[in-house]
């Protein structure tokens, strides 16, 4: 308000006085206008919120979510309690999706590169469409690449690729290929069975961070909540890294990386020797071995030396899990060593020993669900497949590559040299909502709609024991700010190949029309005609039928294992080698790196954010002279990156844990030039049995670069105080280790041991009424 008296008087002479005062006080123009829109939909009432049930197949596959929409804008996302997968669960990253849609770096124009050496420039939709049609006509060899998904977009991709005589491949950075292969060998299906944690009494898991982010954390963590309810179950977790799943476990074992199968076999050994289960179960289990017995050398005391895990704990776990309903499962890094499939196979086979296959509280098979217009698989293509494919690209045998939902250039390890391969493909067409490294390397960029604006249907993984189809429906229109020229992937592909249907909506309608015809017995929606049926499905967020369960209650072993695989690692020719344990945090392997909400969620274990850090054991760090925030070089046989150190007590000595997701070279203001890309330096060791990438088998050398940066972390913002009755806390000063603090007696006690006095009438009104 820099209005002086002179100006005020001058202005008041010229215009209505009311207007002068408004202008003087700089109330924004738009607050002084009430706009009447041309037409007002019935459901667009200001101040009244609408909740729509939909599904986010890229970020939260399988989960049913509810989206709150106010005045045509998305405000909040939460789990859909009605949906059989999500139930009361929720994922940390749900709300970050809001900023995928409303992002300052959102793409809204088509970009084209006229020649391989040219630069990307904006172009009109019609121009770009001409080029796309030319690049995808019937004579071109086309390859379609997406993220692994079992949905309408998978179907459309597959059909389109086949119509052009090409291939459809999927890529997942830290994939679980071995897991699905092992499951197929054991149970005859590539689908994940239900791991019935909520009804179980004992849970033993290996490697998978199922509470934090493995496959379906909403589903599993809500099961964990049930496990910890009235009849509190026992939970043991075996993982070299201390993830939040390890923190939640009653017993956490940290074996040397790759030796998880030894622990499983040792547990089996104890159970068989002590005859803790019936003979039938023992013989079912021993069928997996070629000789019908476990090899020599799996006594707990032998295994203790090879795995670094205490023998007493192995015996304790063995005794606990053979008592009551138990379930054993594996995933995550356990499946990602050179002997990954073997590890996974042996661990899941323990369920035969415990008699929990097909029973409540154990592993229950899911039915095979085949639905027209939904295709794809959650099992991505293995690295071996990709090596062959990229060789084709390099040789120029492929004319056009269409990429959607996965940032190939960012996520593939250096050894694959995907950028070089893309340079030899004539037309690279990519879909994306904001710039990323793959889009940068493409020839045609199509700005994509987000899932808030698209129709789709997905079959969740894992299924909840019965046939389920999740629905994805638009919750905001194409007129959402900044999205006028964006296109939906499915709609675009259908445009290029009209035999697939007329639009994404029509495909989804066909799916549910088919379901309507079979919907008389036990489905989640009952209606009199197809239109009302679809409405009902939209309201519930999907269609499921609890009666359509698996016919196969007790699966037979499909392929017994023939031999164990050696556990090997890459080498660095350095005396000070560390095992590298990559893990996925809230950035979802880089997909959410340009979302500030996702970047600023503090990592649960370290409370760090916005950077790439190295978790290293605090004693080892002390020996090596590494302090928190020191810049560290990590060098593997495939490359080198720089990270900040964070020593803490729960890292296994000689291992380091590093999160993926940062370090993109092209991504928008929130992700560019930030941290380092761990996915690049993963070595190309494969599991020889399956050809899948052994992403947990990289070894790196750790060296100080000689500099220190403050690691952005939440810890230390707030003074620590005792949080549990009777248990003191130890204040560790910066630069101090826990040992030193213990010696100096930096304890802080809670002065009064207290539990709430239940006899006292706890009227919590406090100071009421009398206050002014």
């Amino acid at each position: 308000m820099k209005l002086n008296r002179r100006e005020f008087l001058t202005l008041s002479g010229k215009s209505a006085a009311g207007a002068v005062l408004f202008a003087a006080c700089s109330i924004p123009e738009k607050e002084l206008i009430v706009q009447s829109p041309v037409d007002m939909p019935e459901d667009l009432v200001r101040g009244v919120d609408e909740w729509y049930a939909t599904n986010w197949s890229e970020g939260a596959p399988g989960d049913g979510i509810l989206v709150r929409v106010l005045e045509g804008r998305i405000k909040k996302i939460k789990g859909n309690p009605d949906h059989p997968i999500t139930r009361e669960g929720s994922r940390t990253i749900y709300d970050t999706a809001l900023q995928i849609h409303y992002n300052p770096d959102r793409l809204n124009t088509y970009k084209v590169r006229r020649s391989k050496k040219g630069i990307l420039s904006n172009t009109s939709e019609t121009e770009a469409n001409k080029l796309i049609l030319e690049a995808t006509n019937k004579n071109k060899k086309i390859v379609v690449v997406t993220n692994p998904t079992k949905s309408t977009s998978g179907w459309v991709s597959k059909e389109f690729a086949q119509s052009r005589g090409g291939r459809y491949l999927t890529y997942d950075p830290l994939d679980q290929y071995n897991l699905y292969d092992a499951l197929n060998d054991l149970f005859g299906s590539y689908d994940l069975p239900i791991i019935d944690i909520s009804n179980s009494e004992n849970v033993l898991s290996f490697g998978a961070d199922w509470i934090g982010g493995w496959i379906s954390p909403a589903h599993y963590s809500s099961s964990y909540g049930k496990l910890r309810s009235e009849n509190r179950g026992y939970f043991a977790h075996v993982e070299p890294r201390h993830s939040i799943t390890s923190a939640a476990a009653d017993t956490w074992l940290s074996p040397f990386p790759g030796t998880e199968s030894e622990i499983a076999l040792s547990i089996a050994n104890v159970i068989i020797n002590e005859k803790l289960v019936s003979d039938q179960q023992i013989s079912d289990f021993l069928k997996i071995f070629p000789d019908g017995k476990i090899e020599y050398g799996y006594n707990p005391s032998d295994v203790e030396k090879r795995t670094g895990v205490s023998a007493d704990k192995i015996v304790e776990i063995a005794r606990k899990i053979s008592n009551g309903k138990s379930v054993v499962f594996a995933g995550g890094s356990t499946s990602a060593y050179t002997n990954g499939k073997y590890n996974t196979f042996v661990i899941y086979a323990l369920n035969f020993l415990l008699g929990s296959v097909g029973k409540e509280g154990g592993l229950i098979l899911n039915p095979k669900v085949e639905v027209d217009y939904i295709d794809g698989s959650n099992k991505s293509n293995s690295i071996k497949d990709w090596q062959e494919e990229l060789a084709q690209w390099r040789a120029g045998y492929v004319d056009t590559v269409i990429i959607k939902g996965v940032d190939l250039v960012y996520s593939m390890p250096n050894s694959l040299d995907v950028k070089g391969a893309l340079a030899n493909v004539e037309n690279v067409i990519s879909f994306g909502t904001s710039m990323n490294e793959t889009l940068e390397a493409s020839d045609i960029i199509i700005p994509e709609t987000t899932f808030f604006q698209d129709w789709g249907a997905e079959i969740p993984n894992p299924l909840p024991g019965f046939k389920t189809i999740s629905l994805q429906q638009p919750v905001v229109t194409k007129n959402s700010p900044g999205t006028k020229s964006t296109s939906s992937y499915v709609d675009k592909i259908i445009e290029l190949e009209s035999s697939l249907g007329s639009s994404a909506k029509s495909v989804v309608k066909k799916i549910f029309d088919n379901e309507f015809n079979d919907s008389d017995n036990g489905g989640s929606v009952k209606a009199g005609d197809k239109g009302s049926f679809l409405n009902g499905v939209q309201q519930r967020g999907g269609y499921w039928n609890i009666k359509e369960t698996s016919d196969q209650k007790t699966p037979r072993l499909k392929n017994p294992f023939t031999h164990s695989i050696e556990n090997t690692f890459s080498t660095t020719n350095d005396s000070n080698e560390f095992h590298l344990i990559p893990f996925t945090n809230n950035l979802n392997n880089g997909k959410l790196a340009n979302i500030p909400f996702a970047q600023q969620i503090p990592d649960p274990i370290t409370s760090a954010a916005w950077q790439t850090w190295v978790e290293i054991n605090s004693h080892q760090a002390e020996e090596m002279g590494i302090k928190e925030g020191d810049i560290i070089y990590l060098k593997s046989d495939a490359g080198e990156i720089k990270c900040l150190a964070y020593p803490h007590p729960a890292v296994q000595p000689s291992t380091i844990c590093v999160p993926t997701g940062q370090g993109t070279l092209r991504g928008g203001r929130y992700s560019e030039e930030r941290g380092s890309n761990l996915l690049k330096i993963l070595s190309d060791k494969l599991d020889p049995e399956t050809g899948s990438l052994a992403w947990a088998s990289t070894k790196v050398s750790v060296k100080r670069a000689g500099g220190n940066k403050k690691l952005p972390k939440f810890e230390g913002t707030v003074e620590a105080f005792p949080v549990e009755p009777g248990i003191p806390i130890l204040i560790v000063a910066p630069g101090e280790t826990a040992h030193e603090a213990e010696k100096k007696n930096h304890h802080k006690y809670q002065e009064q041991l207290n539990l709430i006095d239940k006899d006292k009438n706890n009227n919590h009104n406090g100071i009421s009424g009398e206050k002014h």
Partner: protein
Amino acid sequence: MNAWLGQPLPVLGFEQTFDQPINFPHTKHAGPVTEGGLGMDCTYCHRTVENSSTAHVPAVELCASCHRAIGSESSEELKKLRESAGIYSENNQVIVDPKKASPINWKRVHRLPDHVRFVHSAHINYLTNNPNAIKNIPEHLSIYGKENVLSSEVCSTCHGDVASMEQVHQVEPLKMGQCVNCHRENGGPTDCAACHH
């Protein structure tokens, strides 16, 4: 500061109303039949007052629903309205083309600052069930002795007799003092967080 100085001058004592892009006369539409108006109910246009935080200004579509057929050809204001709504006549036929339509940007008359959360529906709900609390009752309405009144009969408490206004202007100061007084008299929440959260 902005809230005080954003106060329209009429309330501070200056008799002034301002022109709207289309000078919609409430007298002709909502005014009592005895005085030449149509006697329309407030909630026919301001529909969401009973279940939302705002009594929104209606969409152009609503105006067009009547004025595509009625209203004189020569009125300036109606010409402007027809242009906004995309109504035009061709070959003696009246055509409504949404593609030619554009929204109307009315000048806001009543404005509460950002830090206030005023919810119409709660007030309508209360006042319709407790008509004793209604103020500024227009002469032509008779609500004495009634136990329940229509939503449109309570609007005058804060907005004055809009039905008699050629151009709508703010008659009540609508400052916090007025709100709290009325709340105190009628047992409403005096908790700060009822409106400021």
